[in-house]
């Protein structure tokens, strides 16, 4: 992957530090989603293609939840004991249990089919762009998707200007995507932090519905899958294979507490990184400078690929922190001088 700073300093992230069996995966959701559904079905899950319209919350703990859904133009109901809400950022389940709101970023992406020789460049390469012209608080990307590229950007604080930022990223990669044709335009909200309530009664939220998206990198796919699995396993354990009724305390104890103890540190750390490095062009320049360092890359991959904050060599950690401070200070100074020029 290449990371490109506002002043076009390009840092190669991973071509030398990734081990042969490691890689930064690129994903096509349409393929993954249908694979997951198929796998669930072949393990015994009962698939009902329908649109959930609303959820009736019972008044006592012995009555079931009623799911009102529409399939084949007929309204139906389904009575269930436990619900796992995995319906994404605009979750209807979350609304029904009044789980509260969260701030969202908007991610906007255009899928562009490139001519052969331009696609050649992106066969094994993803690019990440930072700068005020492409996003004020996030990054812009060019991700290859097998036979086309996805060029996009995102922002939290400046959603009305998302089109301008998309223009910005297209200008930054202009001669790499010259001659390409836009085949699809997509946008989606991305939660920035967990909802105030993630478990209520016998309903649990997982994935984007709960708000499990890391800051800084905006990664949510792994956490969605993992939280779904953890929640499912929690329910199986608490209900002893479906024999006992599950309660809110069970869900909180087996699922939420496990999840928080496992991943909260990762989320907190990435929030810190976002606050320190995504605030201004100077900080982004420092980030790109730091990413050139091999130790930084190694630590990033160890944490990102294995989903655990990696433990590194203490001496190298100290050097990395000092380098971080040095880079931030230098880039801040350059930024201050730049402002002096304007004034």
């Amino acid at each position, binding site marked *: 992957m290449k990371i490109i700073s506002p002043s076009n300093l*390009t840092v190669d992230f991973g071509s030398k530090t990734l081990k042969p069996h490691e890689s930064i995966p690129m994903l096509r959701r349409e393929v993954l989603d249908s694979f997951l559904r198929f796998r669930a079905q072949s393990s015994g899950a009962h698939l009902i293609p329908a649109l959930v319209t609303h959820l009736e919350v019972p008044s006592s703990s012995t009555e079931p939840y009623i799911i009102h859904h529409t399939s084949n133009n007929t309204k139906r109901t389904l009575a269930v004991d436990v619900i796992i809400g995995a319906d994404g950022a605009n979750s209807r389940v979350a609304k029904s249990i009044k789980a*509260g709101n969260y701030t969202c970023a908007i991610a906007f992406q255009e899928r562009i089919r490139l001519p052969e020789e331009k696609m050649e460049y992106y066969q094994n390469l993803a690019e990440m762009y930072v700068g005020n012209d492409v996003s004020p608080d996030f990054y812009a990307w060019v991700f290859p998707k097998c036979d086309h590229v996805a060029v996009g950007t995102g922002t939290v604080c400046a959603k009305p200007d998302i089109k301008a930022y998309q223009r910005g990223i297209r200008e930054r990669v202009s001669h790499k995507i010259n001659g390409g044709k836009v085949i699809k335009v997509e946008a989606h909200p991305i939660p920035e932090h967990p909802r105030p309530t993630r478990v209520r*009664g016998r309903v649990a939220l997982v994935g984007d519905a709960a708000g499990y998206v890391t800051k800084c990198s905006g990664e949510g796919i792994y956490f969605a899958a993992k939280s779904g699995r953890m929640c499912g396993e929690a329910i199986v354990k608490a209900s002893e294979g479906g024999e006992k009724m599950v309660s809110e305390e069970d869900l909180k104890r087996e699922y939420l507490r496990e999840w928080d103890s496992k991943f909260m540190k990762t989320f907190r750390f990435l929030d810190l990184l976002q606050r320190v490095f995504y605030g201004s062009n100077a900080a982004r320049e420092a980030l790109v400078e730091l990413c050139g360092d091999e130790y930084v890359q190694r630590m990033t991959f160890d944490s990102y690929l294995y989903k655990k904050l990696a433990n590194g060599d203490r001496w190298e950690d100290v050097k990395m922190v000092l380098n971080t401070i040095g*880079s931030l*200070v230098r880039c801040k100074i350059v930024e201050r001088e730049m402002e*002096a*020029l304007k004034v």
Partner: protein
Amino acid sequence: MSISMSFFSPPPPTHLLISFSSKPHFTDKTIFFLRPANPLLLSAPKVSTDNGAGISAAIEEPKAEQKVAEPAGSAPEGEESSLGSNGAVADAGVKLESKFVDPRWIGGTWDLTQFQKDGSTDWDAVIDAEVRRRKWLEGNPESSSNDDPVVFDTSIIPWWAWIKRFHLPEAERLNGRAAMIGFFMAYVVDSLTGVGLVDQMNNFFCKTLLFIAVAGVLLIRKNEDIETLKKLLDETTFYDKQWQATWQDETRSSSTAE
């Protein structure tokens, strides 16, 4: 023109650590730097003979126009083409490509041989040139190119150049303030309580006051800094609060929680 000191977090450690923060960095990066620099040096003589007249002029210029408002001079073609491209930005398809052009910017980095002054590199001029380049890019974002990658980063400039130009004047100012406040307060306390300087230092209360005074001088240099520090504290704990929100319900009844 006064340099406004608006160091973001963490200011105090920076001042303490900066002297050895870039030292390991310097040793790491010099080795790194020497290798790519060599091909530049080999090709540079060829370039310098071409721009022989241009070089001395270019060196005079940045020194003379250190704090001039517009970035004139070194990138005239850049300016004109930027005006052109600004007009064309609204066009969906065809755009004018504006590139940062400067006689000293070669191969994606600053050619240090063109910054020579009295036989050694004039790092202040390099810093100024880089500032001007980034300022220009901010207004005219340039498309990144694979054939012409930028390889200059701020760690190429040695740590002592940064300290000499930016840290030392500030340190002088802060130490001066601390000394003045210290002398005055020592005098006032002595005249009010009769406790001399040595006895003041032995007293725990006085030591605490001294600590607060030093911390205050380091952290708060403008009135805005107080607000900045308060906001910083809030921000640091905000994300945590959002995560813990789901556990707050346990202290309230779930029917009233919203």
